[in-house]
């Protein structure tokens, strides 16, 4: 990339034309130019390795595991393989390419696939994308296969696409609800079993079934077991239930068994969407329900679930009391009637299936904001996941439709998450937090769909960095104040108003600052195209100002511009219309508001701090002045009195001279005890009373039986490989290791160790049956154990 040379003196007519274009949008006086989107210069170089390390695709290693960025996952796998002694150093260096290829394939195809599928797809283009020698290509392929073999086969990969958001939401909700549901079902199963046993015993007692075997076959001929059982005093057998209690227990058991039978078909997460919507196509069909008005349907569904859950909850409570023999009808009947889910433990509340409404922004607006308001004010833990389109055509002079996240913020007891697929880790963390909250929540995520004129991943990142799709989170459970509830973490450099990067370009040693602003996105938007004009290189001396600098201290005479880049990598200055400048400023102000809410930079706090500082400074200044004045007064008084005081003292001395005692000899200096102690000779450190004797050396050092080499110290001198090329081989660093200790004799091992200039071969002990291991050889081998 280079900066074109500065041009000649500006043409006055061009200056006027540029100003007219900026102020009134009239471009007929400017030289004509080709239509079509311009490439924002800041888009270059966004996709570095660091980006891939914190970005899509994500790998979910197994059930219950959190998603990890693919590059990090593969790097960790490669490092583990290297630690285990595999040679995968070359492919480790190329993992960014692998991740990029995987991301491209997933975006163009399925959004999600298993890791082996993704790796197979990537292996079709990799290592062909890497330039190697023929020997290197073979090695790289071997390394690729080695790494591929170490990866888990059941891992899933989630890329960037329509289904990214539904998949992440499903995983987060599933991980939260499944353990709670399974624990609750386990408890219900156990209670049902116990109740069943209780009733069986009760039936047996009443029917005399237990008395008959006790009486024996002979007695049965002349004693009626039922009559015998009924005649027994109550204290001698199980206490019988009264009919009302028995009926209650039977009903509770029936309810629990119905619940167990019904829950087998109920999924952990119920996803509701608009009829005909393709969103969530990759989710299991068992958990997806289509409705005409999913927001309203979700509320009804939740209410139905709660009604049933209340009955189950009563049944469990009754079962516990009945099994403990503590059910008291007079007390508990009333309580049972009042019992509902609001009194349940959080574990029991999470045992209900999660209800998620999955919609696009358009669908939510079509159903009406009143439906959304119904969800948000209803106190039901219904989570609304909104996939908001974010494409170049959405960057429009007419503005974007109001963000649903901003709307949801108005309901202050709602969990709100605004995210973007450009920061999937923030998104996933937010979704997991939401899944753990038993309150309504709204998640609004910017999802780009088009691959032109920029790849979706790059566009998403650009919009995120330009603060057009900022991330924020409002969590009412995090505290009582805005500062505790609201945060803008997850945005790049949140302390900066405008994120900018320095790009090295030819002809500008310090580089050029390229800001990521709304203007950069407008360059790619067809709707904004007529508000932008490329200025010919030779006319760059027209008084221009870079947009983000101009905002700070706006000089009306200077026309704002932004940077674009030509096909050949040359920077272009593109002047902006006033309408576009206003739109850019609106985004900056919106971002400033968010930062203020998040406490990143609060103008009120700043003003308060400045006021407090000014007050403190003023107070200290006043104090200092007062001290100085007092000091001056005191000094003056001393000066005035000093002469008379001295004269008085002199007169007194002279008058009393004869009676003055002789000056006393100066008292001998007595060293303070502390000083003495300090100067005393240092005392030898006390010997510990029971000084632990050093542990005896191990009776015999644990010596490995097998031979080995300190490969890092090998000088590659070929001595050992000449002695036995099958036993000793070179590793990827061209340093020797013992490839097969059984490929030679112990004598060869000892000979190699003796020849080794770096003494890095350790011979171990001979294998059984090795006839070369004579006593004389063993004596020689001792030096190389």
């Amino acid at each position, binding site marked *: 990339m280079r900066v074109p040379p500065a041009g000649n003196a500006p043409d006055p007519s061009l200056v006027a034309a540029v100003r007219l274009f900026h102020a009134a949008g009239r471009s007929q006086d400017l030289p004509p130019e080709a239509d*079509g*989107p311009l*490439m924002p210069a800041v*888009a*270059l170089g*966004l*996709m570095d390795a660091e980006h891939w390390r914190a970005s899509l695709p994500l790998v979910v290693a197994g059930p219950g595991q959190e998603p990890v960025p693919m590059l990090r996952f593969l790097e960790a796998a490669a490092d583990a393989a290297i630690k285990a002694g595999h040679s995968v150093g*070359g492919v480790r*260096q*190329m993992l960014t*390419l692998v991740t*990029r290829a995987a991301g*491209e394939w997933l975006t163009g195809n399925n959004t999600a696939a298993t890791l082996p599928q993704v790796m197979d797809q990537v292996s079709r283009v990799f*290592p062909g*994308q*890497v*330039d*190697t*020698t023929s*020997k*290197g290509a073979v*090695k*790289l392929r071997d390394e690729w296969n080695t790494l591929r073999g170490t990866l888990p086969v059941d891992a899933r990969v989630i890329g960037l696409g329509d289904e990214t958001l539904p998949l992440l939401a499903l995983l987060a909700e599933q991980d939260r609800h499944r353990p709670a549901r399974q624990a609750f079902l386990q408890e219900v199963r156990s209670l049902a079993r116990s109740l069943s046993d209780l009733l069986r015993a009760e039936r047996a007692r009443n029917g005399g079934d237990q008395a008959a075997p006790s009486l024996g076959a002979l007695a049965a001929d002349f004693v009626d077991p039922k009559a015998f059982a009924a005649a027994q005093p109550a204290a001698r057998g199980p206490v019988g239930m009264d009919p009302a209690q028995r009926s209650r227990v039977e009903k509770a058991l029936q309810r629990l068994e119905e619940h167990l039978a019904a829950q087998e078909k109920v999924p952990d997460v119920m996803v509701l969407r608009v009829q005909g919507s393709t969103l969530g196509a990759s989710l299991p069909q068992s958990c997806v329900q289509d409705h005409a008005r999913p927001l309203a349907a979700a509320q009804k569904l939740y209410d139905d679930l709660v009604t049933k859950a209340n009955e189950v909850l009563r049944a469990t409570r009754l079962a516990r009391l009945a099994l403990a023999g503590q059910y008291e009808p007079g007390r508990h009947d009333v309580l049972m009637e009042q019992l509902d889910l609001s009194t349940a433990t959080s574990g029991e509340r999470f045992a209900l299936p999660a209800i998620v409404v999955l919609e696009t922004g358009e669908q939510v607006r079509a159903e009406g904001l009143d439906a959304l308001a119904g969800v948000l004010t209803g106190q039901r833990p219904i989570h609304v996941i909104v996939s908001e389109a974010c494409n170049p055509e959405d960057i429009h002079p007419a503005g974007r439709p109001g963000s649903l996240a901003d709307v949801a913020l108005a309901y202050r007891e709602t969990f709100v998450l605004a995210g973007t697929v450009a920061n999937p880790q923030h998104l996933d963390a937010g979704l997991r937090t939401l899944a753990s909250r038993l309150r309504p929540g709204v998640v609004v995520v910017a999802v780009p769909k088009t*691959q*032109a*004129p*920029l*790849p979706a991943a*790059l566009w998403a990142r650009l919009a995120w960095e330009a603060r057009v799709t900022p991330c924020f989170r409002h969590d009412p459970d995090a505290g009582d104040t805005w500062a505790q509830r609201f945060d803008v973490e997850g945005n790049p450099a949140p302390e900066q108003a405008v994120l900018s990067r320095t790009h090295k370009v030819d002809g500008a040693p310090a580089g050029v600052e390229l800001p990521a602003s709304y203007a950069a996105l407008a360059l790619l938007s067809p709707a904004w195209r007529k508000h932008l004009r490329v200025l010919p290189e030779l006319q760059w001396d027209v008084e221009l100002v870079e947009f983000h600098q101009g905002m700070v201290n706006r000089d009306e005479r200077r026309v704002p511009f932004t940077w674009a*880049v030509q*096909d*050949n*990598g040359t920077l272009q200055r593109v002047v902006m219309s006033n309408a576009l400048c206003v739109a850019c400023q609106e985004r900056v102000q919106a971002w400033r508001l968010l930062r203020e809410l998040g406490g990143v930079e609060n103008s009120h706090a700043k003003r308060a701090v400045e006021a407090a500082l000014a007050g403190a400074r003023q107070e200290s200044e006043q104090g200092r002045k007062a001290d100085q004045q007092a000091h001056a007064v005191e000094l003056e008084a001393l000066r005035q009195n000093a002469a008379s005081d001295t004269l008085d003292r002199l007169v007194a001395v002279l008058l009393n001279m004869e009676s003055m005692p002789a000056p006393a000899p100066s008292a001998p200096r007595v060293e303070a005890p502390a000083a003495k102690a300090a100067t005393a000779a240092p005392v030898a450190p006390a010997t510990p009373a029971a000084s632990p004797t050093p542990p005896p050396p191990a009776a015999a050092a644990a010596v490995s039986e097998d031979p080995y080499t300190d490969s*890092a*110290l*090998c*000088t*590659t*001198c*070929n*001595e050992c490989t*000449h002695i036995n090329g099958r036993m000793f081989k070179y590793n*990827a*660093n*061209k*340093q020797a290791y013992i490839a097969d200790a059984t490929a030679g004799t112990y004598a060869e091992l000892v000979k190699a160790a003796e*020849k080794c*200039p*770096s003494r890095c071969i350790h011979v171990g002990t001979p294998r059984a049956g090795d006839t070369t291991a004579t006593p004389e050889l063993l004596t020689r081998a001792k030096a190389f154990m």
Partner: protein
Amino acid sequence: MFGLKTDWALEPRPRLFYIDDYEGALPRWCAGCGDHAVLGSLQRLMRDEQLPPEKTVVVSGIGCSSRFPHYVSTYGFHGLHGRAFPVACGVRSRRPDLNIFVATGDGDCCAIGAGHWLHAIRYNMKMTVMLLDNNIYGLTKKQTSPTSRPGQKSNTHPRGNPLPALDPVRATLGITNVSFVAQTVDWNPLHVYATLQAAHRHNGFAFVRIIQRCPHFMDHAFDEFMRGPDKVLMLTHENGVQVDDSIKRLFRNTMSHDPANYDEAMDIAARTDVLPIGLLYQNKDAVRYDQITAAGMEMTSAEKLAAMNKELDRFLI
């Protein structure tokens, strides 16, 4: 549309080199020769720095160690005896884009090539110099070399070398405009690697003396240092050779030495009780002659012709 690929990669296909890509002919050095360790370390360095073989050249003179270019599959120049430096300086002058390694021995560098050696130090052109010093002429079957120690018996001095040995490190330190002087021992390949890496990354003439065993003609010559780690003094500093803790454990005798301190470097080099290894001296600001000789390289033939004519026009009457 923008001349960009859909994966927005402006860079060409990434290249990957393995150690095999730097392996040339099978080394014909004696088994156990210290040259093997240096060769292995250099190849690992080239691999780790991913130096393109066609952008790398190894230059040597004559001697055992000067067989280096044959064993590295980069460009190479096996030159005349003592003339490795003039060739390397010439390469540097016209091809500043190449990575240059010079392999030379104690005879090649310190005897017949001594004159070139001194001026190459002063020119301070960017290259990595490996002086493989085994204190003997090995290729010609055991003759006394300039660095042979007094009393050392050889075919030319069967009763022992009567002269004190030349110290290449002190000699190099004594030359004007010296910019990088280090010393290492071949029996610790990790230290050789770390030293060569520091030398390669130095922008200037990086001189590395590698004490190297000759098991055939000078067996046990360095045993006192090999078997007695206390006789080796490892120099450590944040600006010096960065080595792993595992190596530090091998050399218990260490000393912190700032490579910018020239006087201390001279004092350390003069010590005879220990063998110092590590970076003795580095001056990153020394003048580089290759930056001057490279002026005008970007000019086309026509521009050069025009410039020459312009100069000649000054003498028109």
